[in-house]
Every structure is written in C-alpha cells, then in structure tokens.
C-alpha cells in the first residue's frame, strides 16, 4: 500500500515536470509581452532595453531553468498587468473563489448524478430511466457558457430569483455552479448507470437476494459498493474539468475567480500570471488523481492486495 502510494507520487511529479515544460513553451509561443507593455510607437532601443530588463533576451533554456527554479519556490515573478503584485499573490487571491464555486459544482454533480444513475439502472426500461437518460443526453450536448446565459435569462432576468452575476454569497454561486455541473452530472450519471447495470447482473447480487436482504441493501450496500469504482475513476477527471470549466463560466458570470483571472491574464499576455494559474490547475488535477488512486485501493480490496 505504501509502495503503491509512493509510486503514484513519483509518477505525479514526473507529470508535473512535463507540465512546467509545456506551460513555459506555450506561453512563449504566443508572442512577446513587450508588445502590450509598450506603446505602439516605442523605439527599437526601448524594446531592447525592456527585453534585457525582463530577461527575455536570454536563450530559452536559461529562461526555462530560471522559471523552474523560481516556480519551485512559488515565485512566478511579478504580474505584468496588475503592477506591483506578484503573480503568485494575484492567483492566491482569486483561488478561494474558484475553489468555492468548483466545490459546490462538484457537490451538486455527485449529489445528483449518483442517485440518478443508480435509480436509472435499477428501474431499467421504465419512464424514470428514460427521463434520466434524456436529461443526461441533453446535459452532455449543451455547452456550459450557453447554459449559463440561458440560466441567467430565465432565473435572473425573467424570474428575478437570483443575481445575474458577480461575487457574493450562495445566491451568486447557484447559477454558475449549475452551469459547470450540468455536463459532469450527465457524464457521471451515464457512467454510474452502466456500472450499476453490470453489477446488478452478477451472482453476488443474486446471492444477496437469496439471503433475504432488502432491495435497498442489495442496491446500495452490495451493488453500489462494487459499481462505485467506476464513478470514482471519473472523479479525477471531474475535479479537473470543474476547474477548467470554471474558466468559461466565471467569465460569463463575472465571478472573480482564477478562471476569470486566466482569461484576463491571457488577454494582457501576462505570462507570470498565466503560468501560475496553469500550474495551480495542473497541480489540482494531479492531486485529485492521486487521491482517486488512493481511494481506489480503499474501495476495492483487490487493488490493495494486487
């Protein structure tokens, strides 16, 4: 078990290293930040001076090593857009808002998708099943930004129940969280349903019924305990997608989180902030997946012993 955990940790570190290379490479492929920092009529000397000043005239590999060394210490440099603030500070400032929103979206996804998937499988072929599958198809087909706009139109503009956008309490979070969650609910519901269908057909579920166990015990304690490994596997993807999904949805709802920050930073070619945001997202994604692997072993004894 400890070896298994260690191995996963090392694998994650390798992935993280690869991500730093990609982040560094991509952000440099988008063009020089100098263009947006100086007025259009800047002279060649002024451009060269600023390049030297920011270290942009060094060879790429040296720039990368400097970047890596600093990144390891949590230093992504000073923001180019938000003058006077460190990139790390800017991101840390916005991260809690994104985590709150993402957390709520995650909670909604699980709370809706697991029961819906289970019921759909248990009542296969009935109207409840058809309803759930219809919604799942719908949820997977509509883009989050479109759903966000429609939700604003109905619940904020039309009915006036919830605020249209901005940062605030739970009322401000409901619509964006639903927008992020919709796709995940659909995907997770379908996964749960198919996993349950497979398990409900097994001999050990039959044996549970032979014992005289109640239908609730058969479905949840016997069948779902086994089927859970499938939605659990998806949880790693889910946690990542909820964060990346926040980029679009935060922009639609004007939610001042890390996703919104990422868009603003990209517009301004604010490399240090872009790099910090992406590294944070990558880290969150990796952590979620390591967590999933550990949960795996906890859920399924065969993984633990294998």
């Amino acid at each position, binding site marked *: 078990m400890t070896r298994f955990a260690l191995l996963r940790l090392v694998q994650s570190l390798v992935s993280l290293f690869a991500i730093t290379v990609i982040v560094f490479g991509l952000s440099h492929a988008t063009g020089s930040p100098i263009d947006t920092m100086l007025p259009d009529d800047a002279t060649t000397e002024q451009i060269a001076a600023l390049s030297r000043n920011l270290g942009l005239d060094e060879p790429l590999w040296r720039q990368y090593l400097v970047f890596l060394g600093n990144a390891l210490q949590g230093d992504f440099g000073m923001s180019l857009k938000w003058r006077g603030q460190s990139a790390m500070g800017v991101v840390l400032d916005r991260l809690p808002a994104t985590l709150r929103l993402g957390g709520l979206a995650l909670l909604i996804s699980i709370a809706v998708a697991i029961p819906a998937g289970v019921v759909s499988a248990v009542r296969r072929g009935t109207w409840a099943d058809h309803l759930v599958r219809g919604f799942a198809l719908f949820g997977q087909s509509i883009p989050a930004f479109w759903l966000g706009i429609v939700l604003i139109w109905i619940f904020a503009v039309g009915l006036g129940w919830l605020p249209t956008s901005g940062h605030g309490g739970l009322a401000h979070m409901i619509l964006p969280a639903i927008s992020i969650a919709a796709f995940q609910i659909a995907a997770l519901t379908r996964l749960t349903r198919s996993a349950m269908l497979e398990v409900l057909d097994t001999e050990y579920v039959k*044996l549970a019924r*032979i*014992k*005289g166990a109640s239908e609730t015990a058969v479905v949840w304690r016997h069948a779902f305990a086994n089927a859970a490994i499938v939605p659990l596997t998806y949880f790693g993807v889910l946690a990542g997608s909820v964060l990346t999904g926040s980029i679009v949805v935060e922009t639609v709802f004007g939610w001042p989180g890390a996703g919104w920050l990422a868009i603003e930073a990209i517009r301004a070619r604010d490399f240090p902030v872009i790099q910090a945001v992406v590294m944070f997202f990558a880290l969150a994604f990796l952590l979620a997946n390591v967590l999933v692997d550990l949960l795996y072993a906890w859920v399924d004894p*065969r993984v633990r*012993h294998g």
Partner: protein
Amino acid sequence: MVLDVSNLSVQIRGKAGVIHPVDDVSFSLRPGETLGLVGESGSGKSMTGLALMRLLPQPAARITQGRITLAGQDILAFSDRQMRSVRGRDISMILQDPQTSLNPVWRIGAQVIEALRLHAPGPSTALRVRAVELLRWLGIPAPEARMRAFPHELSGGMRQRVVGAIALSSAPKVLIADEPTTALDVTIQAQFLRLLRDIQAETGLSILFITHDFGVVARLCHRVMVMYAGRVVETGPVRRIFSAPAHPYTRALVASVPRLDTPEGRLPAIPGQPPALWSLPSGCAFAPRCPLADARCHLKAPPTVVTAPGQSAACWRPVA
C-alpha cells in the same frame, strides 16, 4: 412434503417472442430427500430453481401459473416483504460459480454475519461467534482468520463452502443447489458433495440438486427429475432412472454417460439439437430426435403416465 410444486409455468417475453422456459412443472420434495434435477443447458433447470426463490430475472420473466407450497405456505401469494423473510430462512440457494457468488469488496465475515442478522438479529459479538461456528461446520480451516479475508484470498473450494455457510446460515428446510460443483476441481467436488450429504444427515435438509452430471446424481440423489425443453419428461427413484429409464430421452442421456465397466469406444450421442423454445414442435418436444417417435408423437403432446411405482414419464411410448 416440505415443498410441493404443481403446474408451475414461467414465461419470458423477449425479442423473439414469448417463451416458456418452465412449462407445467410439478414435483414435490420430502424432508431429508435429495431430488436431482437433470437436463441439458436451456432445459429450464435453473429457471425452475429461481422461480422457487421467486427471483426470476425482472422484468422479463414471470410466473404465469401454478402453485408453490413451501412448508404449508403458498409462497406465490406472499408479498415481497414476506418473501424476503422466507428467502434464506425457509428456502435457500447455492449458485454455480463460487468465483462470482461472493461480494468481492466485502469481508467473508461480514457476508456471513449479514445472512445471520437478517433472520435472527442479535448483538454483533454473538453473531460473530455464530459465523465462526458456521464456517467451522462447513469445514473451513482456521475460521477466525478467514472471517477477515476477502473472497479473492480464498480458493474456489473454500469459497463454495463460504457460499454454503451463507445459504445454510438460517437452517433452511429446502436448499436449491444449482450446479454447485461444476466449477470445482474433481477432488474438491467430491469433498463438497460429502459435506452436503453429512449436513443433510445431520439436519434433515431437503435438497433440489440441479445438475447435468449423472455421476453426481448417482452419488447424492434419492430421486431424479429429467427436464427437456421446459417440461418434466421423467421422474423416478435414482436406481430406476439408471437401470430402467422409461422415457427415450432419459435412456439416451443415461447411455451417453461414460462408464468404467463397459469396453472403450465412441459414446453414444443424442442426434440433433434441443429445440429452440420459441419454435417448439406441436407434439412431444423430443419427437424430432426420438428413435421411437411415430405420427402421434409429432402431433400431440404426451400425457404423463405412471410406468412403475414412483416412476412416471411424459411419453406416448414409454419403455415399461
């Protein structure tokens, strides 16, 4: 009679239409008796077993007619809740594959204890003690240690003993054993059968033993019932079934069993295939493969006639 089944029919609605995997089946089981239920794959053996538990695959299959009287109770009239209290306590079942019969994410102990708790709730410590006793009774060595094991840590034979412990945990009157030894090694098979026989001698358990293995039938069963295409074609004492089978199908089955006391050579096989249940012939279902069949056999389903004391066959031309 501890179990009495009369005119039981099961219907399945599928894409190919409506079929009757169990068609007008009647039999009874005395206390302490083992009845062998024999037939080819698809003859309706397992469906009969599941129908007795009222655990037919839902919603495709349902019981369309008949009566099942278990220890004097008409269980087809029971509600789902009543039926749950009967399952495991009055009638229980062992499934074919011990590999897949136990829940892979539950410890052995938890699975046995659940079965005990369902029909006789009690404090956890007492249930634990009883579970250990039960495992020991089923011949599982070091039962205390096994309680904490997961199914994948046990051998096939041990797993089937655990399944047996679960099935017998509440001292049922009737045990349906659906090919419980098919997936086991031959030596393990023999051990398991001996164990079943010992338990039966000790408790007076009645067993409906579903199998296609005549060797097992000879070793374990008192009476035999042969099914073909959903119908009972012959019932009789095990000795008569082997020495004087009345139905041509039974005779063909018995003749195709390899024996040590006859010279080597090709085993006689039954020509043709069992009929598809969605296109049964109008007369006797076995007629197309039967060497004795005449015009009447192809036209009209045969009645069940008594051919000897305790022996009956559904045949127009039984061999008396």
